[in-house]
């Protein structure tokens, strides 16, 4: 357990090493990056093996950082953070495998990639709101460079939009946290201390602070109507960055909502609960409908991410143990599945066919040209739709059952969202991979040259992700056994009353 902080340090160290190695050859940088990601993932897994689930955060490191302000470098772990740390390890490893073909400025690419990963590990391990915030910002900055340097379509617009949304969100978070910190007497940023102090805040203070912090984090989680950065950012990003953005970075937002906003300000949640649920349901259905009519393959996946993150937010808003554990499970599931979808679209298909227009893809018999990609995409699509046997099923089912307990109305609307998800997923599978060349009407017909075969690195990356989603789909208890005890802690119990005051 004590080795977990090394995930952060290994990632940052790997970033520096990759930068240095990249000056010699891109190949060295790749291997350095892959080894650091594997090492960090290995540390996380070995910690998970010895993990004893229990209520409350288990402190690992606790040092004073800025003593005059009571800011501490405090790292701790519970079942929820551990779940997401494992997810980060999977996403990082797969992301590096899927960017094996990066030649241009490879050292810098992997350095920024690992810096982002280090920041993400840091957020999931922080038990001090200030430390968490600093890691959160460290994770935001590399995204800009990853997208703006190595991105594709409209990358500068996408990168700038993403960064402006992220920083506007974090400005809100910081304002809310400072407000709480000052109101609590400016002694400590510790999550536990703030939560204790918050019980003495007035009703209106709690409402205001909760709104600031939750909204700030929810921007990054892609909450409607602040989701518009997500599709453009996902589309503009290089494959590995889209995988991380959808797979991990959006989870940072949801995790912040749960870990910071909800546990510190339970009264605030009780007040804003219907609003959040309403926005989450609108997000699920609206983004799903938008995904249904997109012409660009990657935009479909981008909007589907927003739709699936709507389920996470709905689970959080329902605020009972079952819904929240489902939300955490959905974070994991969507992290894996979205990574897989983006990998197929961005790496396997786009870099071979050089088009993402569904109309063009329709004219190519991709299921024959790229059978592996087609198979993986079908698996990912089924997982994304919530087919039994894949991780999406237990996650969305748990969320829906949990939500039903709080409000049957919300659950009904959200269930409609599942149908929309099935519709756009099936459409995109059919159009992109199982179109037929016979309907080519002057479109880019089947490529003149045979498409390059799927590389070993891609197969390995896809295998990791598919195995994860199937494993959790068949045995969700692996994660639920960590998540549920964590929700028994007093901090969560104060908030998980299913909306009753």
């Amino acid at each position: 357990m004590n080795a977990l902080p090394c995930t952060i340090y290994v990632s940052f160290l790997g970033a520096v090493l990759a930068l240095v190695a990249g000056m010699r050859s891109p190949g060295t940088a790749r291997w350095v990056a892959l080894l650091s990601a594997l090492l960090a993932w290995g540390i996380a897994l070995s910690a998970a093996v010895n993990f004893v689930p229990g209520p409350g955060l288990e402190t690992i490191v606790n040092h004073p950082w800025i003593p005059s302000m009571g800011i501490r470098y405090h790292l701790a772990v519970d079942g929820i953070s551990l779940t997401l740390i494992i997810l980060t390890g999977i996403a990082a490893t797969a992301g590096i495998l899927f960017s094996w073909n990066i030649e241009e400025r490879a050292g810098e690419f992997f350095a920024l990639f690992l810096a982002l990963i280090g920041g993400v590990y840091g957020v999931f391990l922080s038990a001090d709101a200030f430390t968490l915030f600093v890691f959160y910002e460290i994770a935001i900055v590399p995204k800009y460079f990853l997208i703006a340097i190595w991105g594709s379509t409209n990358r500068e617009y996408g990168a700038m939009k993403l960064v402006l949304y992220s920083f506007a969100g974090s400005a809100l978070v910081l304002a809310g946290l400072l407000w709480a910190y000052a109101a609590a007497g400016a002694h400590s940023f510790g999550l536990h201390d703030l939560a204790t102090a918050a019980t003495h805040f007035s009703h209106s203070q709690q409402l205001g602070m909760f709104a600031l912090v939750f909204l700030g984090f929810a921007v990054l989680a892609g909450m409607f109507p602040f989701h518009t950065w997500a599709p453009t950012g996902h589309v503009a990003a290089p494959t590995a960055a889209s995988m991380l953005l959808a797979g991990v970075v959006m989870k940072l937002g949801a995790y912040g909502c749960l870990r910071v906003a909800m546990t510190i300000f339970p009264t605030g949640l009780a007040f804003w609960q219907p609003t959040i649920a309403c926005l989450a349901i609108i997000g699920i259905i609206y983004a799903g409908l938008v995904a249904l009519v997109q012409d660009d393959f990657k935009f479909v996946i981008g909007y589907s991410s927003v739709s699936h993150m709507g389920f996470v937010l709905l689970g959080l808003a329902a605020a009972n143990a079952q819904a929240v554990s489902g939300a955490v499970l959905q974070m994991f599931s969507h992290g894996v599945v979205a990574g897989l979808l983006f990998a197929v679209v961005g790496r396997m298909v786009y870099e071979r066919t050089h088009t993402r227009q569904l109309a063009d893809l329709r004219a190519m018999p991709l299921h024959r040209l790229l059978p592996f990609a087609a198979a993986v995409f079908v698996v990912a699509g089924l997982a994304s739709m919530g087919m039994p046997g894949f991780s999406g099923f237990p996650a969305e089912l748990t969320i829906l059952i949990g939500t039903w307990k709080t409000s049957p109305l919300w659950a009904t609307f959200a269930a409609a969202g599942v149908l929309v998800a099935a519709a756009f997923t099936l459409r995109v599978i059919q159009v992109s991979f199982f179109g037929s060349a016979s309907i080519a009407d002057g479109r880019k017909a089947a490529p003149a040259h045979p498409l390059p075969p799927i590389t070993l690195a891609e197969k390995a990356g896809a295998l990791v992700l598919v195995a994860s989603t199937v494993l959790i789909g068949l045995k969700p208890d692996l994660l639920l056994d960590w998540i549920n005890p964590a929700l028994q802690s007093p901090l969560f119990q104060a908030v998980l009353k299913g909306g009753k005051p």
Partner: protein
Amino acid sequence: MNLEAVKLAAANNSWGALFPELMLACIALALLVFEVVLPRKQHRYIPDLAIIGVAFTLLGLFLNFDSASLDSETFNGLLHHDHAGQVMRVFFLLSALLVCVLARVSLAKRAVPRVEFSHLVLVITAAMMLLAQSSHFVMLFVTLETVTIGFYILVSYFRTSAASLEAGLKYLVMGALSSGLLLFGIVLLYGAAGNPALPMHSANAMHYRDLAAFLAANPHNFVASVGIVLVLAGVAFKIGAFPFQIWIPDVYQGAPTPVTAFLAVASKAAGFAVLLVLARDVFASYAWLVIPVLTLMAGATILFGNIAALTQHNVKRLIGLSGVSHAGFLLLGVVAAASGAAMATGAVYFYLFAYLIASFAVFGVMTHLAGADDSDQELEHYAGLAKDNPFLAAVLAVGLGSLAGIPPLAGFMGKLFVFIAAFQAGARWLLALAAAGVAISIYYYFGWLKAAFFESLAPSPDGPARPERTPVGFAAGLALSVLALGSILLGFYQGPLGQWLTLK
């Protein structure tokens, strides 16, 4: 020679309290002497002597940091030496050192006298150091004028450049106006406090302590209120706060880049050192007036600086307007200090140091990218910097990141401390504005980085050519590395500096 006066001065040793300023003045004069006596071939070493001299003054100041004259008044109450004064002395010496280093790079591109430049920088620095320690309006005005007149020359130092001359003239007109306002305010305060019909009137009303006592006894005197507002307006010119920021873009663009840096950092800090003492201590009983005025000013300054900077393409104008927004954040700290927030004063000093480190890193990169025409520094000139010179690009990234307030860099910690102080003072609405300002500022700081890191902005082949970049020399390279590392380290660990700044 009046031996008695010298003996008296030697006996109470008050000159010893001024040794850094005296040392600077002596070095400044020695530079001129060297220029006369040394053969022309060796003149190029003279500016380096100035750098060494400032470095030794800084060392001497560190060795005597807790000098015996702390918390005492010298020269009949003209000066008051305290911890804050020592901190600001270090600040101005550091700025002077860095300005001299930048000037080595910048002045080499033009045929201009270099010895006089260093001379003027040292004289201005000495005056700023006295300004930060003055406890008397006469001292305040005299030192402020010394600073301003020195800047009149420095701003138009590239006298063959139309932009530099224009900047000099604008600065002269605006500086004269602000001096006039300040003087008028001082006279009104003097007149009010010298009125024998009022309680606590004083014959020595220009002394801060007497004036504060008078103001405390007459908390709603109309003449004094007008005087206070005028004094604040005069200082607001120096720090470039709204609505007195109008000169900033043109002057910053026209002035030689090292002078722009000096104006942006040291001159602004001098204004804040004065403003902090005035708003927190001298005008304390007029908080009902000072706080609303400064609050309005801070809010408008943050908004104006950030919004105006959005559309700039010339980096000197851009950094000038971003500097306006930083003045707004600092004003937020001053408002908190005037409202009695415990950590506000230390927060303002920390912010100033973080601003110094980050700004000089950026200005250092700017001097290396500037061509023969110093005022022509466009964002497009930064295209491909990351590929051609990764070192300068990395320094720029750290400097701009710190200015933008990205954790865990020093600039973020500065903003954090100021914001917490403002929360303690209860300035909620101002904080909301400040948070919006931070979010807006990301756009132009990242726009600048975008120009440096992505080549898509590369100029078209038939457009005007990009100015030749100067290779990084040893001294400038060392200074830039230290500044970049400083921004990073100070963000992670501010222990000694944080305590040292807040130590009272």
